[in-house]
């Protein structure tokens, strides 16, 4: 492969990109915009879940229970329900996510020291919120019951041999890297990887575009080899994407206060690695796509949706069924998310990240070769 020819293609492509200022700016800035938008909105924890109560007892004890349930930032009790029909309606309109139903014999049983059944109806539409509501309602109920029981036992147990009852087990949790389990800090590396998959779609469009416009035919008449054409085409995109990558990292650190504990040089190196992988995949796909419309759809399916979903952002990869885990590892965004997370949040260096780096590099090289091989200098 002749370096001078590759260089010539590179210059041509760069000129093309710069000639279309708007597209160039879009290419550069949309990833940053997306990363900011996503990181801002997706990094939220569940809170203030609206619930309601149906108090069938209306005794001082049940009111105390109601107070315990309402007194928190996690559960918000609006108006209290008066009957089942209202509850149904509120559920249908998604005004409440859960309802706690206190039976009429609540205080009677509790004061006698007998267990009482409290019904909890939960809207399961969104399991995350539902689980949150369930956990909080149950834990508050249990604390309430526990305390009442202790008071009751205190009254009944005349011997002081029990003493003050303390928690039998002391659980100490030490959270590394993200002590507040701030969702945002965890999400940012992933959003970065996702946002940076956009240039790959543009690369896909690049080859397809030439084919569609007919200029590819003219290029085939030149002495350019396949390798020179393909490699020369993607290099300018790698550079512009690196700029985007740096901008995204800057946004993460300065706007979201994300940690950046690793080395910047390593970040740049690994980003290039990622682009090599992602772009060569895009290149390979673009050989088979007849039109840019198809390219856009394939881009959507291969980079956006899976990038969002299978790269371990919302759902840890270790929890996927093994077959899906296997598939996810083929996508460029999966190793990259792991790399960015490791680098930014844990401050890992090349020693720990080299396996991911090698995967991307290896895949990138293989895909590039494959593209060069499969690219036929024929017009279909």
């Amino acid at each position, binding site marked *: 492969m002749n370096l001078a020819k590759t260089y010539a293609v590179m210059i041509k492509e760069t000129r093309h990109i710069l000639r279309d200022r708007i597209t160039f700016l879009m290419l550069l800035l949309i990833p940053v915009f997306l990363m900011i938008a996503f990181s801002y909105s*997706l990094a939220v924890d569940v809170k203030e879940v609206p619930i309601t109560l149906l108090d069938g007892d209306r005794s001082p004890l049940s009111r105390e229970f109601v107070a315990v349930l309402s007194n928190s930032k996690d559960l918000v009790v609006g108006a209290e329900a008066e009957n089942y029909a209202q509850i149904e309606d509120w559920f249908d309109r998604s005004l409440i996510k859960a309802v706690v139903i206190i039976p009429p014999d609540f205080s009677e049983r509790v004061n006698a020291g007998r267990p009482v059944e409290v019904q909890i109806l939960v809207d399961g539409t969104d399991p995350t919120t539902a689980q949150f509501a369930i956990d909080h309602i149950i834990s508050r109920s249990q604390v309430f019951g526990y305390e009442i029981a202790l008071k009751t036992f205190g009254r009944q147990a005349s011997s002081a041999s029990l003493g003050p009852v303390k928690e039998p087990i002391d659980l100490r949790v030490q959270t590394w890297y993200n002590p507040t389990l701030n969702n945002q800090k965890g999400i940012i590396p992933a959003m970065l990887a996702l946002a940076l998959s956009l240039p790959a779609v543009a690369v896909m469009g690049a080859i397809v575009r030439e084919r569609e416009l007919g200029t590819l035919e003219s290029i085939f008449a030149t002495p350019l080899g396949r390798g020179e054409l393909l490699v020369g085409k993607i290099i300018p995109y790698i550079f512009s994407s690196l700029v985007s990558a740096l901008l995204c990292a800057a946004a993460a650190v300065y706007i979201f206060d994300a940690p950046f504990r690793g080395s910047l040089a390593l970040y740049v190196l690994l980003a290039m690695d990622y682009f090599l992988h992602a772009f060569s995949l895009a290149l390979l796909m673009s050989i088979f796509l007849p039109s840019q419309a198809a390219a856009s759809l394939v881009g959507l399916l291969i980079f956006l949706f899976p990038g969002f979903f299978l790269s371990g952002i919302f759902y840890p990869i270790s929890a996927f069924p093994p077959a899906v885990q296997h598939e996810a590892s083929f996508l460029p965004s999966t190793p990259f998310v792991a790399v960015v997370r490791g680098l930014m949040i844990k401050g890992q260096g090349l020693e720990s990240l080299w396996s991911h780096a090698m995967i991307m590099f290896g895949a990138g090289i293989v895909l590039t070769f494959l593209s060069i091989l499969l690219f036929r200098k024929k017009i279909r």
Partner: protein
Amino acid sequence: MLYRTWTFILKELIQLFRNPFLVFLVTLGPLTEMSMVAWSTAAPIEHLPTAVVDLDRSHESRILLAALHNTETFDFRYYLDSVDETRPLVEGGDVVGALVIPTGYGRNLSTPLGETPTLSFTLDGSDPVAAQAALAAVEGTVASQSQRVVAEWMGGNPLAISLIQPRLRVRFNEELKKSVYTVPSELALILFAIGLMLAAIGIARERELGTLEQLTVTPVRRFELIIAKTIPAVLLSYITFMLMMQVAIHAFGVPMRGSWPLLLGSASIFLFVELSIGLMISAVSATQLQALLGAFMWVMVEFLFSGYGVPVDNMPSILQKIAHIFPIYHYMIIFRAVLLKGVGLETIWPQILAGLAIGAVVIPTAVWFLGRHKWE
């Protein structure tokens, strides 16, 4: 006029099917995608790799480990002998956490007068989703073990401690499957994304290839051409949508408790709105690449507001207000309500109204844009 429009619709369809790859892609691609997503989110977060150092090896410590195991959240892949061995595992991300049970744990728990044993759990916070699941499971298990132990101290009646017995009933999604929430989001998104992208690229394509200029010398009216261009997009979107719905319902157990006419009818309204947005994008784009990027960006933003990743209710309130501009936000409410709760028009009419309102703004604007901008 009808004849002209019909001829052009035929032309578009012929062009479309000349490209069987595209059709194939559009129908089967999202299907496989959705299947993967549904399949992997059907289960709650479980089997997270964890490390355990049991320095006590007593009856009590085994009960604790069994209880943790029963939550199914943990996969105790590493049984280690010392605390130091846990460090590299957490650092390397091999485990989501490491639990250390100290010596004397069982002995101290056998009587209320013993020392309080300290269980230490090191958690890898870099993946908050996994970490939170692990934390919740550990805290919950320790809490229930605590209750059991206190009950034993007090004479062996656990019920004496938990007077409040919660009886849980989950509605609409009994198994709390995440896929029931995410699959509809994906479905709606794909429906709109395909329609929007094809519409956006449609006009831009003809402009770029130069064939638009040729079309302007034919008797076809702009309006008829627009309709002709959007029909293939609508057709493909619907076919994909119906296919995916069937798979979602029969293979992945997403319930469909509402009425089909309502579902499809409201989908049509919103689809037209999205298509108009696509047309607007193509009107202002000079090249197909710009249209592609613009449409892509729009789809990604709609992705956000569809509640696919996170329910919109959990977002900062400014964003919740902004969400109202996007048609998908309203459509998702309708979609989920009809699918999961089986509601009728009386409940979702505000959303339909919102859709019509957005349409009333967008569609005339799209027509105006396409009029203003040059057609060469």
